[in-house]
């Protein structure tokens, strides 16, 4: 029976866990076997996730929770673990399993030559396991457990090429920044634990307490101030994982790891975990207007900030990273608007963003794999040689820019509609962000795929890498969509293995079409109702629709004007722009992330390091010094003792005399003590 499939949702994370264990046991051998195992388990979990989703498609599917495994008991308090299957969770299961599977297939082509290939697959499987378990957790402690596990996996993956110092630094930075956010979440859990009736931390209990709270303010265990504090602390956790300002700079360094995990982390999963957290604890946010204001403001600011940063970057992956941050800001903005309609708008954007962002990252990976450079100023004219990559990238870019009828348009429009209704100022910010995003994507597309090649024929970095290196992946003859490459002497691009291009095509489908789930009218409100279990009204204002389309097209046009035509474009593109100094200064500032990292370095890292050095000095000289002092004192005492054993009779005689005297004095003195 379909609805009973929900009972088996807990098996979904177990497939990747099994893959992780098998891959760890395999070690570094067995690349083919490892690849087969991971893809098979990925496929299995995807299939089960689809089954669960289909089973819940009918209206009013009940949430199913099983929460009976006692994990620890402390006196009266016992912590149970279990799983809960809601519609939101099912959606996330679908997203995570599908993108994980596609990333795994892609990695088989991308990471084939790496000697730690099976380790990589193992980590990716572990990551899938953690993320999938996160999605079906039943209480906040379990959620926190898997939240941290996801963070640890991202650390492992970002620092996968650990021999490079930049990779190590990036992994450390990611972990530390998300940790700062996680502290907020932890304190929120503590506060909830202390104040919830029965110390219950289950999501359903939280929902009950806080929903009642919004309706009936008297007699609630949480004051308004406390609710706001808890909500803000939870948001801090979400800020860490979802890269909101000021905890955003770790996302742009994810590129130090292999490209497939940029797709995995940015697009589908970890970055969206923050938004998911807000969604799960939404009743707390609804109960506090201050928190909602903060959330939406931060989201809007991040969106605009990151979009401004994105248009100044010259590294292909960094552009995409900052655009991810910007889109996450939009999602957070939507969640902060404070209505169930906005909630479903945000979640729908999360859904579509997962697909087209993964598509963009994977195709970027294809480009990088082919030309061995990440600097877009050195690319150009690749559309002829990497056809499949080009048109899938194009679809992704259009989706991200919010051009109808691609999926991004619908979800973005939903957010804009809700913003227009509730907070016009933020609507303006979001609209501006949309323009900038479209501009950025157009710039990217033109610089990478169109125009004249600026970096290929005769260039050392390409020739050195590609010469004599025709790895076709798992025995594939190469991408049939690129007929131009191997034979042409002027262009020495590697052919792309089919394992890398097929996921692109597969992803292009939902990137293009998933928007139709959200069409205004019956289907969209159906989605909203299905998601939230209540009736959700969507205002499908035509004004907003037109405005958002116009914004997207405006951005597109601007990009074409600046980068699309003729020699001026080529000059600008190569970065040797003799034009305004302001623009190049802007470019430099953007590359430095508007100096946020420099600020962190000066304001936080150096003082903390200084404190660390001080404490280390203290530890070494005072704490260790005391220990060594004790040791030396004992040694000194011992040496003193050995001096008594010097073999000289007179010394022994003296000691005997002294001992005798002491004894006699003791006996004689007893008389005095007794008398006195």
């Amino acid at each position, binding site marked *: 029976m379909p609805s009973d499939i929900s009972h088996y949702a807990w098996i979904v994370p177990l497939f990747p866990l099994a893959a992780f264990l098998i891959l760890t046991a395999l070690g570094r051998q067995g690349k083919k076997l490892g690849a087969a195992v991971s893809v098979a388990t990925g496929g299995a979990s995807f299939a089960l996730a689809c089954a669960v989703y289909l089973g819940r498609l009918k209206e009013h599917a009940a949430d199913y929770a099983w929460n009976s495994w006692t994990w620890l008991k402390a006196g009266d308090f016992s912590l149970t673990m279990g799983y809960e299957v809601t519609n939101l969770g099912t959606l996330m299961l679908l997203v995570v399993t599908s993108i994980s599977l596609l990333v795994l297939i892609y990695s088989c082509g991308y990471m084939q030559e790496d000697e730690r290939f099976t380790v990589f697959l193992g980590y990716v499987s572990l990551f899938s396991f953690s993320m999938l378990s996160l999605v079906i957790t039943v209480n906040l402690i379990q959620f926190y457990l898997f939240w941290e596990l996801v963070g640890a996996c991202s650390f492992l993956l970002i620092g996968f090429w650990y021999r490079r110092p930049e990779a190590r630094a990036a992994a450390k930075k990611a972990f530390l920044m998300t940790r700062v956010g996680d502290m907020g979440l932890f304190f929120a859990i503590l506060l909830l634990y202390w104040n919830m009736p029965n110390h219950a931390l289950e999501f359903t209990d939280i929902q009950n307490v806080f929903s009642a709270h919004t309706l009936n303010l008297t007699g609630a265990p949480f004051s308004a101030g406390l609710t706001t504090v808890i909500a803000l602390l939870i948001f801090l956790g979400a800020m860490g994982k979802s890269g909101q300002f000021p905890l955003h700079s770790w996302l742009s360094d994810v590129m130090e790891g292999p490209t497939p995990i940029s797709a995995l982390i940015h697009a589908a999963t970890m970055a969206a975990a923050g938004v998911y957290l807000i969604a799960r604890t939404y009743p707390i946010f609804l109960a506090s207007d201050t928190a909602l204001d903060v959330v939406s403001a931060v989201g809007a600011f991040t969106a605009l900030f990151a979009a401004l940063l994105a248009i100044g970057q010259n590294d292909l992956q960094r552009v995409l990273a900052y655009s991810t941050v910007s889109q996450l800001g939009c999602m957070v903005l939507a969640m902060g608007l404070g209505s169930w309609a906005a909630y479903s708008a945000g979640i729908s954007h999360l859904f579509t963003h997962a697909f087209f962002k993964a598509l963009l990252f994977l195709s970027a990976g294809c480009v990088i794999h082919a030309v061995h450079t990440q600097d877009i100023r050195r690319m150009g004219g690749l559309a002829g040689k990497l056809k499949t990559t080009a048109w899938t990238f194009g679809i992704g870019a259009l989706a991200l820019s919010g051009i109808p009828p691609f999926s991004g348009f619908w979800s973005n429009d939903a957010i804009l509609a809700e913003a227009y209704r509730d907070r016009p100022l933020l609507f303006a910010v979001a609209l501006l962000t949309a323009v900038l995003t479209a501009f950025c994507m157009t710039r990217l597309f033109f610089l990478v795929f169109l125009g004249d090649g600026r970096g290929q024929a005769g260039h050392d970095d390409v020739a050195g890498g590609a010469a004599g290196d025709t790895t076709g992946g798992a025995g594939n003859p190469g991408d049939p969509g690129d007929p131009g490459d191997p034979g042409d002497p002027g262009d020495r691009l590697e052919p792309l293995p089919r394992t890398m291009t097929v996921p692109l095509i597969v992803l292009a489908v939902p990137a293009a079409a998933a928007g139709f789930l959200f069409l205004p009218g019956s289907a969209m409100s159906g989605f909203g109702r299905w998601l939230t279990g209540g009736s959700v009204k969507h205002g499908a204002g035509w004004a907003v629709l037109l405005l958002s389309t116009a914004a997207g097209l405006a951005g597109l046009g601007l990009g074409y004007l600046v980068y699309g035509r003729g020699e001026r474009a080529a000059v600008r593109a190569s970065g040797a722009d003799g034009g305004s100094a302001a623009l190049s200064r802007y470019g430099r500032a953007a590359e430095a992330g508007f100096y946020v990292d420099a600020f962190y370095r000066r304001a936080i890292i150096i003082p903390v390091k200084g404190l660390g050095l001080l404490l280390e000095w203290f530890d070494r000289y005072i704490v260790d010094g005391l220990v060594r002092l004790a040791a030396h004192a004992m040694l000194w005492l011992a040496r003193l003792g050995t001096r008594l054993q010097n073999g000289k009779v*007179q*010394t022994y005689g*003296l000691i005997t*005399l*002294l001992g*005798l*005297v002491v004894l*006699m*004095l003791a006996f*004689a003195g007893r008389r005095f003590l007794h008398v006195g």
Partner: protein
Amino acid sequence: MLNNLIDNLKDPASYLYMLFAILAIGGGIVMLNSAKVVHMVASLAVTFISLAGLYLTLGAGFVAIVQVLISAGAVSILMIFGIKLTKHRHDGEDEREEAEKVGARSGHLHEILAAVGVLALFGVLYYAIRKASFPTAPAAEPVNTILATGKLLVSRYALPFEIMAVLLTAAFVGAIVIAKREEE
């Protein structure tokens, strides 16, 4: 005792005691402070002789004579023999030079501690002597101690006497054996 000092000074019999006591103690102190070893032996011989005098005042004639013969005579001569047989390269001034040669610090500590210990011991002994109450002695009639001692030695203390003989034999045989030059 000190309270009665003045009274005792009037008693002529105590002059002897004081004389012999000062000689004995003086000899000991001179021994401690002498530079040359032979001087030390000589001063100690003076002490032994004055002790013999004290025994005489105590009515122990035989013991006095034995003391002179053996301690002041044999033992002192023996010691001088020993000194001459084990002569250093530096003749005479052994004590001072030795003390300066080796690290004086530990030597001084040793001496100070020894002095402290000895003084403490003396203090305890003196305290015990003061606190003890001795019965007033009955006047003992002078006896011919030599005859009486001889009688005791062969009757009551015959066994210790014989054991002493054995001890002396063992001692001198042992001394010869130890000091004999090994002729291989």
